[in-house]
């Protein structure tokens, strides 16, 4: 074992196991993300992807194994501390606050920050990334379309200025054109220096954007490699690429 982070790794998960009562949702998981990478985590419904993200964010109590972020052990940290360290999550189903306005949602994204002027500048930056948010800034977030809510959820997560962004099925339930827009934003965010863990059932979209990927089945990683390797992998082709878009 070495102290400190392995070179260039922003996130390292070693031997993660997670149970919900008797159900073992994650059986054995090793996964790492290099600084500046987009890593895709793909798998069918119920394979344990969301549970993995929840564990990284500190939302599940019953975990074994070790999660390190930028060299520090975050396995037992409370969720709000993990956000403070620089990991933001866009949860499954977006998780926007429906009764609050778009602007209030964005401000809550910056809850851990104190730099008022910079927060205002970042809100303007988010409006440039997703112009529709500016048009709707005074509107209750719950009244927006699914695509707009997804944009808000991503922008809100960025308001914390994360080093690592976790995205749980950002394309779910959205029209192809909106998905394109969302993915263009994800690439842009990554180019601005944010590492991304991208969870998807939509393997084609995810592998199109990612540098590397992992395939998860019933709580385990079954295949991993570069995006190009995965796209030509027979298992991935038959199970994930044949059946999607």
């Amino acid at each position: 074992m070495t102290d400190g982070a392995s070179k260039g790794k922003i996130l390292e998960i070693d031997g993660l196991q997670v149970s919900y009562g008797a159900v073992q949702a994650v059986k054995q998981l090793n996964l790492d993300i290099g600084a500046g990478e987009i890593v895709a985590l793909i798998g069918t419904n119920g394979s344990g992807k969301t549970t993995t993200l929840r564990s990284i964010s500190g939302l599940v109590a019953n975990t074994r194994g070790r999660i390190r972020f930028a060299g520090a052990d975050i396995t037992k940290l409370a969720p709000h501390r993990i956000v403070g360290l620089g990991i933001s999550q866009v949860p499954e189903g977006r998780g926007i606050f429906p009764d609050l306005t778009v602007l209030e949602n964005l401000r809550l994204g910056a809850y851990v920050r104190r730099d008022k002027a910079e927060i205002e500048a970042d809100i303007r930056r988010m409006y440039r990334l997703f112009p529709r948010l500016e048009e709707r800034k005074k509107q209750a977030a719950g009244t927006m379309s699914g695509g707009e809510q997804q944009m808000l959820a991503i922008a809100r997560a960025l308001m914390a200025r994360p080093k690592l962004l976790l995205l749980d099925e950002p394309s779910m339930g959205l029209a192809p054109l909106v998905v394109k827009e969302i993915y263009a934003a994800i690439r842009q965010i990554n180019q601005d220096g944010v590492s991304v863990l991208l969870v998807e059932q939509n393997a084609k979209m995810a592998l199109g954007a990612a540098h590397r990927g992992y395939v998860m089945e019933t709580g385990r990683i079954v295949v991993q490699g570069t995006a190009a390797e995965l796209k030509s992998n027979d298992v991935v082709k038959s199970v994930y690429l044949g059946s999607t878009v």
Partner: protein
Amino acid sequence: MLLQQLTNGLTIGMIYALIALGYTMVYGILKIVNFAHGDIFMIGSFLGLFFMQEFRLPLYLAFLLAAAATAIIGILIERLAYRPLRMADRIVPLISALGVSTLLVSLAQKLWGTEMHPFPTAFGSRTYTFGNVTFSEIQILILVLSFVLMLALQLFVTRTKTGIAMRATSMSLTHAALMGINTNRMISLAFAIGSALASCAGIMVGIYYNAVYPTMGYMAGINAFTAAVLGGIGNIPGAMLGGVLLGLVETLGGAYISTQYKSVISFSILIIVLLVKPSGILGSKEINKV
């Protein structure tokens, strides 16, 4: 006569509203009914009495100190009686609430006896007449202070970063935590504010009826809970509206039908709302069965 009854109804309605806010804020976040809340109101009243009697403090200081002390008691109750049961089945914290309720009443009986205590203040007896409506000093205090406290709460939850974070926490604990909000702190804050408001209500009720006693929290608690459900439990403006409505209905019913029916009115409203529209007047559609 009618105007006088409306004034009296509004007075008691503001009290219900103040207490109802504690039920609704806690329910909003934790989805549990803090059945000990009526007894927190009682303890708050006794603490006000205590500060005035033992230390001869002026009324406003008694309010401040009792509210602060009751807030701390509220925080402790959550820490000791509810937080350890956060993962347990919904019925478990309910039983724990009943335990806390019994404990608080017994504690008050041990410390202060079972009898009624008059409130040691000359304040409240003077009256003012406008047209054909007579206000007592304490009624004016209740109307003004309750209004100011509710306005302050409304500004807090809509205009401040912490207040908005508290509302976000009541929309979703998980998603609030993902914003970096310390949700346990928000829960403590909800208990603190609810308990402090209940304490203010307790002191004002103590002066209004010139009586403080260990079981005073039962009926007040049930009425305020009804008010919270009527307005839409979990909804802050709803609790205010529900409180005022219940106070008016109860007082008018008492005046024009019979005072015997006062408590029946509140129970009937509770049952009717739960049957017809469990989400209350301002509540959202989806509501979990308590």
